[in-house]
């Protein structure tokens, strides 16, 4: 608002100079905007697929309208419930587990005095950089039923477990793999926030006789609170999205595990590419976008309340 008023009050000369300054900036923005147009906005009308009775013969836009039939179909099957449940539950667990570990590791790292500190920090970030395909190879090396490290070494002599057939283990495996992959990245922000704290507070506390544990719970955690809240809210905004590679590649797309590994993203992908069910997966995509949109708005509103500067828009 304030900006607008300011602009209206500008003299013509100032406006001219503003335009002169803006033109080079627009030129800079242009390549990126063109790419956004091509990559994101040109296919966007394809969203109508969700409301169509698609026949390849008639094309996307020529196919007859189907109203909300695709959505009805999506919600009448059990799938909608399963994929929504999986997506949300996994994300909630991920958020909590990742938060605990990331903050914990960040605090430990910040207090350590050894030179190995740097090494720890670098190495734990490494898994974050691996592709889902590679991660799935790693997991397979451990869990492969006949050759896997776990069945062959840890469980040697016991009945082997067919990991890729047994649903009950996967919620834990997925949470663990997600934590393993993300911990280094997740702790960076907390770590750098902690490093920014005034060390004087700790020294004063130490002089007052506070134990390490007290310092952590009474100083570090309260100071970290805004960061924790904000990052958590951001994650909540993405709660309807899932890491495709984690849920598709890592369980090796195993059919027996579907009820615990199927999320909205993998469902859309399977519907689209394996079953060729274009409209239903488009409907699922729209469902995801809409709910995601609402959640992002809500999260943003919350962030705005807590820390207006950090709001997305």
């Amino acid at each position: 608002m304030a900006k607008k008023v300011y602009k209206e009050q500008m003299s013509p000369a100032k406006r001219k100079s503003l335009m002169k300054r803006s033109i080079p900036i627009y030129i800079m923005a242009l390549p990126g905007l063109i790419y956004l147009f091509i990559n994101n906005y040109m296919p966007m009308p394809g969203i109508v697929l969700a409301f169509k009775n698609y026949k390849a013969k008639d094309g996307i836009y020529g196919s007859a309208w189907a109203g909300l039939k695709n959505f009805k179909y999506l919600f009448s099957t059990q799938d909608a419930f399963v994929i929504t449940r999986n997506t949300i539950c996994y994300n909630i667990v991920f958020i909590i587990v990742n938060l605990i570990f990331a903050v914990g590791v960040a605090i430990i790292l910040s207090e350590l005095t050894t030179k190995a500190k740097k090494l720890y920090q670098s190495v734990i970030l490494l898994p974050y950089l691996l592709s889902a395909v590679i991660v799935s190879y790693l997991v397979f090396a451990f869990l492969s039923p006949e050759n896997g490290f776990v069945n062959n070494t840890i469980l040697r002599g016991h009945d082997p477990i067919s990991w890729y057939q047994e649903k009950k283990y996967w919620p834990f495996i997925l949470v663990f793999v997600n934590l393993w992959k993300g911990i280094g990245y997740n702790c960076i922000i907390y770590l750098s926030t902690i490093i920014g704290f005034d060390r004087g507070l700790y020294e004063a506390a130490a002089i007052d006789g506070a134990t390490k544990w007290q310092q952590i719970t009474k100083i570090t955690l309260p100071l970290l609170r805004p960061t924790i809240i904000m990052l958590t809210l951001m994650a909540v905004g993405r709660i309807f999205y899932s890491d495709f590679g984690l849920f598709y590649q890592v369980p090796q797309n195993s059919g027996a595990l579907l009820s615990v590994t199927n999320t909205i993203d993998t469902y859309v992908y399977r519907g689209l590419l394996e079953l060729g069910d274009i409209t239903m997966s488009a409907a699922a995509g729209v469902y995801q976008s809409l709910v995601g949109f609402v959640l992002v708005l809500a999260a943003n509103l919350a962030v705005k309340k807590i820390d207006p500067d950090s709001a997305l828009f």
Partner: protein
Amino acid sequence: MKRKLALLLAGMMVVGTLAGCGSKGEEAAAPAAAEETTEAAGAAEEVVDAQAADDGSAAAAAIEERKASGNVPKVVIAYMNFAGTPKGIDRISAKMSEITEEKLGVDVELQIMDAASYAQNMNLMLASGEQVDLFNTVSVGFMPCVNKGYLMDLEEDDLLATYGQDIIAAFKPLELNANRVNGTLYGIPVKKDDAAGQFGISIPQSLLDEIGYDYASKYKSADDEIIYTDLDEIEGILTQLHEAHPEKDTFYMDVSSVVTQCLLIDMVGGDAFGVLNDPINSLEVTDLFTGDQYMDLCRRMYKWNQMGFFSKNALTETLATTVQVKAGSLMAYKTATKPGIKQQESNLCGEPVIIFQCGPDFKKSNTYNTMPWAINQNCEDPVAAMQVLNLLYSDPELATIFCWGEEGKEWVETEDGHITFPEGVDAQNSEYFNNVNWELCNQFIAKIWEGEKLDIWEKMQDFNDNAQASKAMGFTWDNSDVSAEFTALTNVYSEYQAQLELGFVDPDVVVPEMEERLKAAGLEKYIAAKQEALNAWAEANGIE
């Protein structure tokens, strides 16, 4: 539509000229098409079979008109292999085009995709309207394609009757009709082993020698490759093998193929929920798991497992059986038999094997529609596509290139009429060695690779013709109305399948438990829906 009309008109005109002036018209025709036109003109003059003459000439006329127009339409052919696009794909496309251009005035382009991505890529191509004219529906799924409207009605404007006469000649009506959905023909089956010998067992010859088993006297005739026997006999052999080598695994079979390849049942529609337990005589859809055949098999496997035939790891095995035999860790395994099986399994195991068979040769209801060839409904020139398909089923030279590649580069002829790799070429460095001829239209007319008997395809035809066939032959099952039940049933079954069928649990205890859960998941509803569809199909096709 306009173009089709014009084509038809042009066709009629040429027929007229040909019929009227006989050999004069023939001279005017391009030499390349001479063969066809002679045939057509001759037939037309004889007017013995007016219908056939008309169709033959229409086909010739289409070629004629296409050549006269000067532009060569391109037909894109897609299929899958296990290694991705071969290096020689463009050269083979060009080689095939030489023939199709000469005979049809059409070019072909191959698109060969990996099994891993074939379904995905085809779905995208079909949905987006990219050019792909002829494709094999394996992995993409025949029924899903039909449901989505991807496939062309092959009899629209008499397409098949007019331009695909060699295809019609290559199959029995029943074989083609199996690809009808609600009366509309969408696919053309592949010429392959249509039946499968049930419960075949393969054991290396050296091991049988070791236990002193006299297999030589068990063959019915000298050139037999299979010993027909029963499971009690096999049990005896396995017991001896187990005694001789307790350190090796005695027997193994892939879990995914136990029900399909060991029992004389027909899993109508391709799933285990509601099957024909007496497929040769009855169309009654009943429960597989409480049927005698299934229970007997599970009890037998339970016994074998108690006797120590199976590896402790059997439940989680994913290595190919033949690889295990080759590595020396396994002694006998189940295989589906067919002519040439002995050679095939011996090659895979790296030593001669003896093949036993405990069940009959049997043809299932979905034999002809698991992987038919189809024309994309988006195809711009269905006539050209159909003519190319027709040629793939009838032209030995074209079929040989399609299956095996180019002479001199991928294969050379041996003295006795086989073909084999040229000097310095092997399966690894060959630029076109797909190993998927069971998918490629008509391998029966292609040349025969060294190692197979030269009469393999006659034997195969006999085998196909003599096998017992399911009464529901040709039935296609669309389970989209009960897909929720299907998912639930599959989930329950997959929990028990491997343990039961490899004998790790007592079937008399576990089958009732599974049955209870299956019922809760809607087994009865699913079976009823299947029966209803089967009845409707039987009525429409006049089968009692």
